[in-house]
């Protein structure tokens, strides 16, 4: 997923396989906040979200030597895994409302190259998302950040099930096509 001249995510995973803790720290530097935020958006519990995010990076650390690069990028794998684990945890316990006392982590300082990379990627992804119509965009968000089935999404949005399926499909295809070539 990294498209700049930084050390690639894949190289960091290779370094992790040799026991390089700095490589693990570098991956947290890149993805820690996003992992935690995605899990929090699904779980609505910051402590649980941080635990899930740490679990994902820990799994990658423990299994770095076996990471299968043929099945996609490191970034895609960890984002897919954090979503899957967060949904599993959500299913396993009663959903809780966000607590007023949840601690808010102060933003940690990024290095300048990361900031440039991040803002560039944000611009590209936002551009790609803008090619979707509102219905497609909303359905993709709902499908990604919730544990709702197709039927539940249809009920929630008051759309026919067939429309939900076709919009999720067309939206994701449009997003993928718009991103292809712009983000490695």
């Amino acid at each position, binding site marked *: 997923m990294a498209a700049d001249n930084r050390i690639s995510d894949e190289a960091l995973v290779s370094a992790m396989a040799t026991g390089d803790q700095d490589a693990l720290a570098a991956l947290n530097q890149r993805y820690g906040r996003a992992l935690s935020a995605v899990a929090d958006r699904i779980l609505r519990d910051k402590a649980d979200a941080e635990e899930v995010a740490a679990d994902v990076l820990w799994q990658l650390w423990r299994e770095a030597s076996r990471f299968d690069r043929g099945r*996609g990028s490191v970034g*895609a794998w960890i984002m897919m895994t954090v979503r899957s684990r967060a949904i599993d945890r959500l299913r396993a316990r009663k959903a809780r409302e966000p607590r007023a006392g949840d601690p808010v982590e102060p933003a940690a300082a990024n290095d300048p190259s990361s900031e440039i990379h991040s803002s560039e990627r944000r611009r590209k992804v936002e551009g*790609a998302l803008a090619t979707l119509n509102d219905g497609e965009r909303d359905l993709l968000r709902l*499908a990604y950040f919730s544990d709702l089935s197709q039927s539940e999404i249809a009920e929630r949005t008051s759309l026919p099930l067939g429309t939900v399926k076709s919009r999720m499909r067309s939206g994701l295809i449009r997003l993928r096509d718009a*991103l292809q070539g712009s983000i490695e």
Partner: protein
Amino acid sequence: MDHAEIKDLIPLKALSRLEGDEARAVDEHLAAGCDECERELASFTEALAAMAIVESGGDGPSDRIWSRLQARLDADRPPQRIEDRSVRETSRGRGFAMLASAAVAAVVAIAVTTVFFNSRMRTDSSDMSNEIAALTARVVEVQRNLDTTGDQLAALEAKVAQTTDLTLASLGPDSQVVRLGGLPASPSATGSVALNRAEGTAMLEVSGLPPTPDDKVYEVWWIGEKQGPLKAGLFEPSSHGATIVSLDLPPPGEVVLASAITLEPSSGVEKPTGAMYLKGDFPRR
């Protein structure tokens, strides 16, 4: 369902929004090795990851996650792994730690004494430097052994904590404990699951399972009365002794009929697809 119909479903697969026959058909098609659909799935997964990162506020570090990882690194430094030690080694581990501490103290004392006397008796500074270097190397070696022993001790303490959790999960009026029996895939394996909903604890203890292939992991399932198989956790067996892992709780209100362990792809699956290695039925209440 043919290839074109399956390919149409890949975006929904990437969103984990396939159910029933469609989900089964896509999984079987991918398992059969369709490279084109694998590439499609990977490309959609990449697009969703990019969307998620931006929608969640962008990438960047998390100090709190790093703190959690650092604690795990400290407790689990290679080459010693928690699974590689049995609880019985606790007292021996502590013995080694004390022995190693005493050894370090002794070597340091010998070094200081030797250097002191040598400095009084000799004037050849190069000989003394060599001896200091040799003794320093001994001290470093003993210190390294002490570090290793400390790692073992930390791992053993974590193991004891896990065993305590298992014990607590097994006790109390609300506890349910079920013995897991080996199936044809692993007839000599045994295990037990302890579930205590009141305490919010679920633990698995298992032994005798064969090692997992590189791309596989054992997945634990709750078999629910209403929802069927529900993910409870992933683990790899220890190379020695029993493996103890904490499990996710089953959903509130779901009656658990049984627990089972299957061999699955390393990232885990939503529903069981691989061979079943252990299973046990919960007593009906």
